[in-house]
C-alpha cells in the first residue's frame, strides 16, 4: 500500500511540475502575475491601518496578529489554488463530461482531476503569506507551525471545494452553490473571529471551516497549544476523507456526456 501511495505522490508531483512548466512558458507573464498578486494583497494592509487608527484591538487581535491572520489566509489560499486549481472547477468538469479523461487513467481519478492544472499567480499569495508571517515575527518553531498550517489549511480548502463540486453528481447547476461556498471560506478568513458573535461565530468553526483553517492556527502560532494543533490536523484528515468518500460515492452515478476532445 505504501508503494502505491508513493507512486501516486510521484505522479501527482509530476503533474504539478508539468502544469507549472506549461504556465511558465511565458516568463514575463508568469512573473508579472506573481508580482501583481503580491501588490494586490498588500493593498488590504491599508484597510487595517485605517481600522487600527480607530481602535487598538480587533476581536482580540493586535495589528501584527491581523497580519499573521492575513498571511495564513493568503498562503492557504495560495496552496489550494496553485496545486489544486481544478478542484474549484470540479462542477464544470463533472457536468461537461470532462471527467472521462481522468477515469481512464490508472491512478486516483479525484487526484488526477484536481491537480491537472496550476494557477501561477497563486504563488504570489504564498509569497505574500510568508512576507506577512515575517512581519509578524520570525521564530523557528512558529515558522514550522506556519508552514504546517499553510499545508493543512490549503488541503482543507481543497477538501471543501471537492465536497461542494461533487454535488454536481446529484444536482444540476450546482456550480453556483460551489462558487458561493468557496467564496465564503475566503471572505471570512481575513477578518478576526472576535468580531462575530453567536450563530455566525459557531458557523465559522463548523459549516464554514475557516475557524479551523485560520483562526485556530493563528491562535496556535501566537501562543502554542498542542490541543489546537491536534484539532487542526484531525479536522484536516476528517475533511479529506469526507471529500474522497463523497466524490467516489458520486462517481458511481457519473455517466459521461459524449464529450469528444483531446488533451494536449
Amino acid at each position, binding site marked *: 500500500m505504501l508503494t502505491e501511495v508513493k507512486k501516486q505522490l510521484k505522479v501527482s508531483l509530476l503533474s504539478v511540475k508539468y502544469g507549472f512548466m506549461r504556465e511558465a512558458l511565458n516568463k514575463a507573464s508568469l512573473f508579472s502575475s506573481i508580482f501583481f*498578486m503580491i501588490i494586490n494583497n498588500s493593498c488590504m494592509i491599508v484597510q487595517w491601518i485605517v481600522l487600527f487608527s480607530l481602535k487598538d484591538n480587533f476581536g482580540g487581535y493586535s495589528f501584527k496578529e491581523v497580519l499573521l491572520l492575513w498571511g495564513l489566509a493568503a498562503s492557504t489560499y495560495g496552496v489550494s489554488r496553485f496545486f489544486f486549481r481544478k478542484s474549484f472547477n470540479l462542477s464544470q468538469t463533472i457536468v461537461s463530461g470532462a471527467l472521462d479523461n481522468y477515469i481512464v487513467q490508472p491512478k486516483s481519478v479525484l487526484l488526477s482531476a484536481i491537480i491537472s492544472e496550476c494557477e501561477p499567480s497563486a504563488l504570489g499569495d504564498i509569497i505574500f503569506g510568508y512576507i506577512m508571517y515575517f512581519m509578524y515575527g520570525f521564530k523557528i518553531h512558529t515558522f514550522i507551525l506556519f508552514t504546517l498550517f499553510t499545508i493543512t489549511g490549503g488541503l482543507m480548502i481543497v477538501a471543501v471545494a471537492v465536497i461542494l463540486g461533487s454535488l454536481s453528481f446529484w444536482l444540476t447547476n450546482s456550480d453556483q452553490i460551489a462558487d458561493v461556498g468557496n467564496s465564503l471560506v475566503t471572505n471570512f478568513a481575513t477578518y478576526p473571529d472576535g468580531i462575530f458573535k453567536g450563530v455566525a461565530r459557531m458557523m465559522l468553526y463548523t459549516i464554514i471551516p475557516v475557524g479551523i483553517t485560520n483562526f485556530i492556527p493563528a491562535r496556535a502560532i501566537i501562543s502554542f497549544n498542542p490541543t489546537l494543533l491536534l484539532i487542526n490536523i484531525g479536522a484536516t484528515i476528517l475533511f479529506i476523507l469526507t471529500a474522497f468518500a463523497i466524490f467516489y460515492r458520486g462517481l458511481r452515478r457519473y455517466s459521461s456526456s459524449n464529450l469528444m476532445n483531446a488533451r494536449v
Partner: protein
Amino acid sequence: MRKYLFIFKTQIISNLQYVGNVLIGFIGNFVMLFILFNLWKYLYSDPSELINGYNMFQMTWYVIITELLWMSLGGRKLVGKISEDVITGNVAYNINKPYSYVGYVLATHLGDIFIKSIVLSILFMITGLVFLGGFPSLTLVNVLVIILTMILATVISTLFASSIGLLAFFFENSRSFWWLYSKFILILGTIFPIEFFPGVLQKILSFSPVFVSSYGPAKLFVDFSWSTAWEILLAQLIYLAISYGICEFIYRKGVRKINVNGG
C-alpha cells in the same frame, strides 16, 4: 444611438433567464455585507457615536451602497471577456461592423448587468432594512438624483474596466491591472468614505475615480445635500468624457497592432 439601444435591449432580454443565478450569487454578497456590518458594529461602541462624521447607521448604509455599485458592475468578467477577445483575435470581427467598438462594449455590458443591478438593488435595500431597521430620510427627487449618480457611476466604471481589458493589446496579462484598480476602488472608496483618510489623501481622492464611481452616490444616500449633488454630477460628467476618451484612445492605438492571417 438606436443601434446601441437595440444591443442594450437584446442583452437585457437574453439575461432575463439568469435571474436565479443572481439570487444564488447574492448569498456571497450578503456574506460580505454581513462581515462588514459586524466589523462596524464592533467598531461603534455606541451607534450614535460619530467617527469622522459618520454614525453607525450612515456608515453601514454607505458600505451597502458602495458594495451594491461594485457587485453589480461585474468588472472582472468584463475585463476577462475583452482581454480574451483581444488575445484570441475575436476583436477583429468588430472592425468592419457599422458601430463604434467602445459603444458596442458599453451597450452590451450595461444590458448584461441591467437585470442583475435591479435585483441586487432590491435585495441590498432589504438587507439594509433588516440590519438597520430603516432608510435615511430622502425625498423622491433626492432618490431620483441618487439613482442618476449610480447609473453614471456604473457607466464610468464600465468604461474604465473596458480600458483595462483593452490593455491586452499591449500586455498579455491585463487582468493584473484590474486587480490593482479594483483594490484601489475597494480600499479607498468602498469600505471607507474619503473622510477616513489623511487630509492630503482626501484631496487627491476627491479628484480620483473613487469620488465619481463609488463615494459620490453613497455619500448622497447617507447625507444628501444639493451642493454635494451638483458637485458629484459635474465631476461625473467630466469623468464620463475622460473615461470614454481613454477607452477610445486605447482601442484605436491597439487595433492598429492587429495582424489577421488567413480567414
